[in-house]
Each structure stands twice: as C-alpha cells, then as structure tokens.
C-alpha cells in the first residue's frame, strides 16, 4: 500500500493492522518518531494525521491510509532554493534551548505545532493544557511552555503558514 508522509509517497507492505509507529521507524527508517510506552500515554510518538496530533504507538497503519502523515522529519520545509527552513516550533525550541535528552521532543514539537495550527495565539493556560499529555522526564516543561509561546510569536511575525 501507499502512504503519503511529509508530502512524499512511500510504498509499504500491505499490513493494515501493523502499528504505524513501527512502520515509520522500522520499515521506513523514519526514527525521529520515538517509542516510550506503547499504550498512548507518554506522547513521544505523536505524529500528525491530516494535521491532527495522533499517537502512532496505538494507531493502526490502516488509519494512515489515504490521509496525510506528518512526522518530525517533515516539520522543517525547504524554501525555493532548497535551503532547509526550520518550523517556527523548531526554531523556538532551539532558541529557548528547551530539549535536554530530546527523546520526547518530537512528540512535544508535533503537539505544539498542531496546537498553533488550531490556535495561533494560545494563552498560558491553553499552552499548559495542550502540552499536558506529553511526558518529559528530563523536566523541561517550563522551557517547553516558553518555547511554545515563542513559537507563536515567531509565527505571527512570519509570512509563511505553519504547516
């Protein structure tokens, strides 16, 4: 079957009941999406399905059939000259030096990107609630909140759409 991931077409084995996470990581080598718990709690595995933040560790491949999948590898985009441009969320996480080990960060950033797409100007409480379901064991929550606020600022200043 075919998958549309980060605006590219991938051929994958016809295994609709395989979990999307392992197809991404093991079959396609897109290891930026991480495994943490396997039961949809920690949020390290969040990807977008048609823009919706989705836990790939409990999502069957069949759910990705016919929808646009976006992973951390597809969050940055290339400009007309082929130069990689970081997504405002990535830029903000870098500016705030938010990640420590960074294992959870693709889940954090994909969650933040989906939040800002839906709500470009979240207030502090909305950020807390939106980011509440992604664990970070290094304890970077405070910096994550600052980075999401900063991403909204960068986004407001940039011409380019978020996703």
């Amino acid at each position, binding site marked *: 079957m075919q998958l549309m991931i980060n605006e590219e077409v991938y051929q994958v084995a016809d295994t609709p009941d395989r979990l999307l996470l392992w197809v991404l990581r093991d079959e396609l080598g897109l290891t930026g999406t991480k495994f943490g718990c396997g039961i949809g709690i920690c949020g390290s595995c969040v990807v977008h399905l048609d823009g919706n933040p989705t836990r790939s560790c409990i999502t069957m491949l069949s759910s990705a059939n016919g929808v646009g999948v976006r992973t*951390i590898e597809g969050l940055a985009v290339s400009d007309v000259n082929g130069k990689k441009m970081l997504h405002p969320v990535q830029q903000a996480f870098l500016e705030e030096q938010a990640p420590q080990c960074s294992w959870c960060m693709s889940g954090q950033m994909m969650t933040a990107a989906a939040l800002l797409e839906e709500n470009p100007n979240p207030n502090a409480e909305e950020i807390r609630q939106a980011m509440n379901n992604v664990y970070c064991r290094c304890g970077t929550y405070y910096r994550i909140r600052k980075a999401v606020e900063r991403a909204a600022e960068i986004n407001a200043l940039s011409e380019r759409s978020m996703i």
Partner: protein
Amino acid sequence: MSEPAESGKRRRLSRRDFLIVLGVGAAGLYAGVRFGTPYLRLRLVDFLEESGGPPSNIDAPPDAWFEILPDNTVNLFLPKSEMGQGVHTGLAQIAAEELEIGLDQMKVYHAPTDRLVDPVGTSASNTISSLYTPLLELSATLRELLRAEAAKQLDVEPQELDLEEGVFRLSSDPSQQRTYGELFQSLDEWELPESPPALKTPSEYRHIGRPLPRLDLPKKITGEAIYGFDVRVPDMLYGAVARPETIEGRLISSSAGQAASQPGVIKVVTESDFAGVVAESREQAYQALTHLQLEWDAGRLWQQEEIEALVTVGEGRDVVIQREGNVKQALELGTLIEAEYRTPMAYHAHLEPLAALADVGSEGVEVWASTQSANRLRGAVAEAVQRKEEEVNIHPVYLGGGFGRKIDELAAVEAAHLSQATGRPVQVAFTRPEDFITGFVRPPTHNILRASLDENGQMLAIDHQASSGAVAFPFLPAIMSRVLGADFGSYRGAILFYAVPNKQTTAWLVDLPVSTGWWRGLGLMPNVFAIESFIDELASAANLDPIEFRLMHLPDDERGQRIRNALQAAAKEANWGAPLPNGHAQGLAMSFDYETIMVEIAEVSVENDKIQVHKVTAVADPGLVINPDGVMAQTQGAITMGLSATLLEEVLIKDGAFQASNFNQYPLLRNADAPDINVVVLNSRETPSGMGEPPIGPIAAAVANAIFAATGQRLRRLPLKIS
C-alpha cells in the same frame, strides 16, 4: 569519521603527565591523549570511595581524542555520554578555551571503545569536574605544539605569532600565516614540553562562563539525532527475550513450542535460563515469544510491608560515617527533638527504554547502544559471547534519558547473544514493561534524626541514622562491600555539614530481594529530604526563621561563606517572608553535594488535599560556572524530576511483582503541574563541580517544609500526601 592509520613519522613520548600519540589518517592527523596523571587517578579513587561513581577498573585513566582536519575543523571525541545534560557542549567550551578556536569550529562525537576507553562512565555529576583541568592542559599543550611548528615553518620565534581562531599570523606581516589544519598536515615531529603551558585565569575566559547554545540540539530538533533505539544497519533483525513476572522470577525450563513456525521467525534460542526469539520485525519477534513453552520459578512472593520492614534503622549492618564530639552525652542536654522519615522505591522512567544493536561477526563484535558506561558494556558483551574485550567495539550513541539506569548492560548482552546465534545484526529494544521488570530501583530508605537545642535555639548535638538498600555495592566486586562496609551510594547526602559541636551519622545497610541501584543523585534526595525537613522542624521548635536558623549553624570557613551567600541570594530572589497569595506558603531546603551548593524555595498551596507547587526559586553555586544556561537547565530539570518523585512516584511490590509495569500505573509529573522555576547561578570558585544531580537533593524537603508552613501538617514520607 576515518580511522587513524599507523604513522611512519617519528614520535616522542616522553612526558610524564600525558602522552600525545600522532597518527596519519585519510582525512587528517589525529592527536589522541591519554590522561595518565597521578592527579586524575587520585580523583578517580576519590569518586569511587566518596561519591558514588560507577564500578570500574580504576587503573586505566579516561581519555579524549582530537582530530584536526585540513579545513581547521577540530573534532573532539569524548568518552562521556551526552544524555541531555549538555556535557558535550561544556567540554567543547573548555577545550576551545585553550585551543583558541570558536565553538563553530569544533564538532563533538561519542568515542567508540576501540578509540577510547573510559572506565568511569558518565555518572556521579563528575564529567566536567574530572575533565576540566586535564582538558585545559591538553588543549593548551596542543596549541603550543602547533605554535612551535608554525614558528619553525615561518622561520620566526613563537612569540612573534598572533593566534586567532586556529590561525597563526606573523605580527609584523599578517599575510604570513599557518592554520591548525595545515600544521597538522605537515607535522614531522613533536616534542612535548616538560610541563603544560601556563593556563588562562578565569577572568581571561571567553568561552567558559558563557551561556553558549548546545551543540547537539540542531540535529535533535529535526529528528536526525540517533539514539540506541534508532540505530539501523543492513540485514538487521529484531530480538525479543522472555521475562519473568516477579522480582525473584527465574526461568527453569524452556522449549520452542510453536514459536519457530510463527511468521518472520529466524531463530528461537532456548536455554536453561534464557529464552529468546529473533525475527524479521519487532512485532513478529514479540508475537512469537508468546508461543514459547516456559516454566518459571516465581520465587518468594514478597509484599510491600515486608520490604519496608526490612529497611528500618536497627536492621542490617551499620557503620558510623561521621563522628564529632560526644553526641550521646550532648543529646541529654537541652531540649530533645526527634523525627523519622521514609522514602519509597522509585523508577528511573527514562523515556527511551534500554536498547542496543549488536553485530557479532568473525572479525569482531560491533555494538551500538545508549549507555552511560561503554566500558562496562564492552566487558559484559565480551564475556557473553566469549570474545576478548579488544575484539568488542562499543559505539555509544545519544541517550534518551539515563538517570543511572543506563549503566545496565542487559540489552546489549542479549542483542549480542542473539546476534551470535543468528550470524546477523540483532536489535534488542525493551518494551516499557520489560524495562520495569529487568531494572533496578532507587532503594527504600528510613532515616531517624535526633537533636538537642539550647535555650537560644542553637543545636548542641545532632544524630542521624540512615537506613537504605544498596546503591553502589550491587555493581561492585563483593570485596568492596566487605572493605567499605557502608555503601557510599546509599549514604550520599547523609553527612551533616551544619556546624554543631557534637554530631554523628550512622549508615545502615540491608539486603533486599529487589534489585536496587543508581538513581539520579543516589542517596542524595532521600537523605536531604530527611535532614532538611528535620532542620525545618528544629527551626520551628526554636521559633526561628528557617533561614536564620541555618545561618546560625554554618561553618566558619569558605564553604560556610558560600552557603551564606547562596541562602541570602535565594531569600532575595524569592522575596522570602513577603506577603503571598492567600493559602500560599514558602518552604526552603538546601544541600551541599560534592562542591555544589543548592538552595531551593518552593511556593505551595494545599486545596482539597491536593498539593500545588506554584513556583520554585533556586540558587545554584557549582563553583566555577562553565555554561550558566546549562546550569539553569540542569537545575530546572532535576527539580522537576524531583518534584515528580516528591508528589507522585513510588514503586510498590505486590505478590512478588512490581505493581506498575507502565506509565498508566506509574504516573509522572506532567506539564500543567510543573511550576515555573527561576534559577540564580553563582560563580564562586576557580574550579567547577557537578550539576547533573545536586539540584534534585533539596526539592522534596522544600515542598514538605512549605506544606508545613501552609497547613501546620508535617509530612515525613514520600510521596507527600495530605492525610
């Protein structure tokens, strides 16, 4: 990276303090450095005996390796693991300082064990403090060797050369120049100086002390960085291994059953004490595992109360680890105050479970793993596949959290075992329940403190009895346990640093059926929770402000002065004593760990039995600050992790098994409950101490003390719960 080749060029290896070995490779020249100083060796012994570094062969010193490329890029290969603590950046700042290059000219890599062997591992907050001086000396020596070579090539005196960002220019004619890269290329012979060049003083530093951004983050935010779970090689397979359900569970017999005929299965390995499957995909391996026929001995079905009863002051073996004056006598004077505290077992909850990929070939064994101790992995893998250590090459990669757990070699050993059985590379990457059941936990603790106060609230005597399961001993040769008696990992943080004429600390150690070991800070958090809660109780009994009470009991020396400064800075920053919102209160606790001083103030309220931590203010004084933003990040991170342990975490045993096997049963602190954390960084000395663990020490007591201030309720047991 290219391999260094044998050089036909001459070498002189004469210096006592360290050696530089040159070799010519395809991409450039290499300078590898062996730090063999007596100084460093003493430090290593020190770490082992006093502060809880992981087990190691302390005869072999740690190393670092430079590679200078023709384009003037300096590659620094380090034996220390980057697990988010920022040490690769800190060490690069140190090296760049004396090399006189920009950070953008330097790249940092994990060194594989065929290049460098670090017997210590990455732990005990010692990376920066142990490598600071050697790395400065090495970098300065390298720089001066390059300067001498430049002077020779330009036929001038070395002092006629200016140096900027790795380029020497003749002062009188800047067009005459040589770059590090050129000099490395054309070098014939180096003679090492008898002593290292004079080092800069801290006031001359331009990289050290600046909040430079982390070198590893650009690749981490794009998803490109490779961790242990992520390594992919051609023809690789996936392994899964049968696990017990109980903490004493043991496989007594196994057979393949229907496993071999399951889809994708390449190999089934059943032995008396091991059963595993190798398959084309991860899911196939785990699915086939359920078809094995296994017989387990569950062992004794322990209950939580039994384990807790074992860890009680008075049980097990005791060693007096601190004694000044006569505590017994002095406790009979003045007002006697006594309290006891308990902390539970805790899980590391690193978000990347243990993972490794092994390729056991006829030529050699290659292993990629997220590990805190590549050296330990090398020895364990060599033993498991019966090869010489030199034939095993461990490639450390980024860790998705470590916190002590990733000293464990199990995933690498199992991957090697299964690779040997199949002749192909095999990954073993744990599920979360596997990570729980195969792991070790922070041991449970019980502390009893007694003190007597005179009529002015001055302590006449203080006695501390600290009971714990083992931390370091399970990882050390048995002889260490017999020689040392008390486990330095367990009693970390238990020594009383307050100035009291009569004081005594006794460490009690018990054997437990649960595997216990390293957890960020080791005994630091449990012991500081007990001591600093008790100090707060004493201040309250003396009717004194908790800061005032502490100031009354500081030693009259440099350390005391540093603590005084830190306490005063914290009080100022947190507006200690100023009015707070209704129902809010502040609590303070501090620690002195290695040479790092931490003061933490928590602002807390309690509503409907729910403890809410609104804000934390911390002062961190690690001596010399290498990277202030790194110090802040470690402080914020460790406090947040410590808050999770303070408010939520406990590993419980029921019917011989852990009650929790995943995050649905072992919740962690989440974003909405994590407070803003404001950090003040103090720079007080000429050498750095560690920051990875010290900030986790005081937070539990700071919160408990704030709860007392808010409610009058004294909580003496973690996790804190309002009753």
